[in-house]
């Protein structure tokens, strides 16, 4: 560590500002629909369950909010033997 590091301490406020702007843009867009991930999980599950018997605990829905791109990640673990649902 050089003695100059004291004078060039990284400024944390701009980071705070950026994080907040990003987060709030998304939270405002959701506008009370903070349960979006849960709603998606339920509906996606319902669709898949019509065709394949899946374990509810082995489904994972993740929302990741990035600066330019947001991703919706759906991770479903398939049973070993794909058994179609009998109607």
């Amino acid at each position, binding site marked *: 560590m050089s003695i100059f590091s004291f004078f060039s301490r990284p400024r944390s406020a*701009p980071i705070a500002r950026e994080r907040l702007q990003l987060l709030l843009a998304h939270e*405002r867009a959701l506008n009370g629909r903070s349960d979006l991930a849960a709603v998606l999980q339920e509906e996606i599950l319902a669709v898949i369950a019509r065709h394949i018997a899946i374990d509810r605990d082995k489904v994972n829905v993740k929302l990741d909010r990035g600066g330019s791109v947001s991703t919706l990640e759906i991770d479903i673990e398939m049973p070993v033997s794909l058994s179609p649902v009998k109607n």
Partner: protein
Amino acid sequence: MAKVLVVTSGKGGVGKTTSTAAIGAALAQAGQNVVVVDFDVGLRNLDLIMGAERRVVYDLVNVVQGDAKLAQALIRDKRVDTLSLLPASQTRDKDALTPEGVERVVGDLRDKFDWVVCDSPAGIERGATLAMRHADVAIVVTNPEVSSVRDSDRIIGMLDSKTARAEAGERIDKHLLLTRYDTGRATRGEMLKVDDVLEILAIPLLGIIPDSEDVLRASNVGCPVTLHNPSSAPARAYSEAVRRLLGEAIDVSVPVERKGLMSRLFGRKVA
């Protein structure tokens, strides 16, 4: 025409109660007839900050439930005679407040006072929604810190959707009160600047209260900071905020501590 003002924030510990007491007292000193109402049922503190904790007999819940008359529960301030306090109950929980009861009590207070200042509990549940329910004006108390700004954004959304005015399609006046501000740290880039918070929350600025030892000193003795040490930096900031609330157009600045020679030398107040 009486005005109902809610002091709210979402996040706890940002200075709602301190601000309610300081603003209520400053409004009363400006000649307005003021009541400060504690909505934090179960965790009341406004009585303590106002120095009236030993005079509480009846409270908001008693009045809401009809067990006591409004006049019996109101506590007249001993320093400013146009200032009154309606304390919260300490032994009940927030479910003891009913929407109908609160509406009736706030209506009665409107008839008696010029300003009804409601100190909201933290959170976004029943207590907080009831405190903001009948407000005409809202002061959103925010610290220059990420979690406080995020929670304030949430509260602003609720003010625009959950209040009686919003539901009737009317506007609710929202003002930002930035508290615990440290100009030095903001200049050095260690703390969100006033402009950062204003840009993010996008509501007009009512005042900037500097982080100051005087606030704790006033609460220690149970006196609103605007009465305890009117010449202190936070007291001047609150008084200016109140003048803006009353319609005066004054530029917002951060009042600075006036240090005497002794305090400059020893780094603390001599008194």
